[in-house]
């Protein structure tokens, strides 16, 4: 089967600092592909390059076989690429419902609508409510997103990307800063996506990564040093060296 996402020879340097050093990566249909690596390995840069927020110096990105390297972020989003942000990027002055509704709007409403469209918007709201319910934020629908707790914001972030009915989900540390219970909920949520939505998961929580990932790639100093199943990665001496050299243990 052809991969949903294919990254070929991606390079990016800021001055002398090479953050993407010829990265090749594939996310196959239905799989959760985890990308791990020590801090400063260039994970978020890679996500930004895939999402279109950062332009690589060289290399190509393909989504479902289509070359999207030159497309701006919003056009990639329209092709079904959804991104959850590492630093929570909910819209603080919108309610939870509005945050999700506008995500559906972005999916459905391609042209400008300069006047209110009540019928359309009611439909969006209903769908948004269902998604919000499914991530467990049902009681917070009318709360301003800015006043949610950190963990709730992480759930809302997921609700927003789910509302996009994504062809590929780029999840940049979805569990960062979430508490134990919320992490469990997020893991369950991603578990549910398995087999339907392919996910590129960037995560520091190794328990979550090993529980969820079909395959794992390890990024160190802008290079993928290993790629394989959880067992292969655990056994890989190069990976162990890279991780033992830093503060983060591979097995938490």
């Amino acid at each position: 089967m052809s991969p949903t996402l294919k990254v070929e020879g991606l390079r990016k340097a800021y001055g002398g600092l090479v953050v993407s050093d010829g990265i090749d990566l594939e996310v196959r249909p239905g799989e959760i592909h985890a990308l791990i690596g020590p801090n400063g390995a260039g994970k978020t840069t890679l996500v930004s390059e895939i999402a279109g927020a950062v332009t690589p110096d060289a290399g190509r990105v393909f989504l479902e076989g289509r070359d999207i390297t030159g497309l701006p972020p919003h056009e990639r989003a329209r092709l079904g690429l959804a991104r959850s942000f590492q630093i929570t990027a909910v819209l603080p002055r919108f309610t939870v419902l509005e945050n999700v509704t506008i995500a559906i709007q972005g999916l459905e409403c391609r042209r400008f609508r300069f006047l209110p469209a009540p019928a359309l918007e009611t439909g969006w709201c209903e769908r948004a409510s269902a998604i919000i319910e499914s991530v467990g934020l049902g009681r917070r629908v009318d709360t301003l997103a800015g006043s949610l707790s950190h963990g709730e914001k992480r759930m809302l972030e997921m609700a927003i990307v789910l509302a996009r009915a994504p062809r590929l989900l780029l999840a940049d540390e979805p569990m960062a800063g979430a508490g134990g219970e919320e992490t469990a909920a997020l893991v369950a949520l991603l578990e549910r996506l398995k087999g339907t939505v392919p996910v590129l998961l960037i995560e520091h929580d190794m328990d979550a990564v090993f529980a969820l990932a079909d395959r794992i790639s390890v990024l160190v100093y802008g290079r993928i040093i290993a790629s394989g199943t959880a067992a292969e990665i655990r056994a890989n001496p190069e990976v162990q060296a890279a991780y033992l050299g830093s503060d983060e243990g591979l097995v938490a």
Partner: protein
Amino acid sequence: MTSTRRRAGWLPLALFVVAAAWPMIAEMSGNPFWTVLASRMLIFAIAAISLDLILGYGAMVSFGQAGAVGIGAYSVGIAASHGLNEGLIVLPLAVLASGLFSLVTGFVAVRTRGVYFIMITLAFGQMIYFTATSLSAYGGDDGLTVWSRSTIFGSGILEDERVFYAFVLILLAAVWVLARLLVASPFGKVITAARQNEARVESLGFDIFAHRLAIYTISGAIAGLAGGLLANHAEFVSPAYMNWQRSGELIVMVVLGGMGTLFGPIAGALAYLGLEHVLAGFWQHWRIILGPLLILVVLRAPGGLGSFIKTRRT
């Protein structure tokens, strides 16, 4: 939020009722020129609404709004000097000309953010100002007299100050209603969302540049309407309408009235011009009072005017 909305609900209505009765009040109190003054205030209120659309909702601090107003005014003035007076033609022409100007300059300005945007809009505003001063065929520095007000279906009813006032009031109400619909529309949601987090909104598939350019153009077009009315009101157009200080005054009206509310800027325009009228009547150097007042208001607002408005609105 709901309580603010409810409170704000009757206030515009009350103001429009008073505004509708204004010419009568003016005449009964023996001050018919109050109607003339009020027409001017309402025209500036339209301009303030246009600025609020980009400043209050899009967080685009445009310092060139007076340029768009001026283009509208000159459209009417220049058309009149060629004998074209029909309001149903020249006013749409003013709207179109200003909208087009905003569209073209927007291609450069809207790509930029923050201080660049401020300076670039300022520069484009000044460009129009200097262009007008060098239009020797249309009065140059001295401006251009508009010999008669626009006609409506060929009739000169707008020459009557009370009719003109009513005409402006109706247009203001229409602009206000349309602007409210616009900001509540799916399009408007994208504009307010983009102000909160651009990367998020882009990741939802929205072309932020296109949206911003569109609202910038709409804003310019509405400012053009205000300009067209201003030319009719004063029966005169002059580069002074486009001076960057005028743009600054519009920002003051919007911000002090309450940006991002659409109604606040109307109140701000009335208050500012009212204050100007009263103070200027007392003392020619009234700006020496206004300036420090403005500085104090900004410095006293805890955490900046932006946050002051945010807390009030949420």
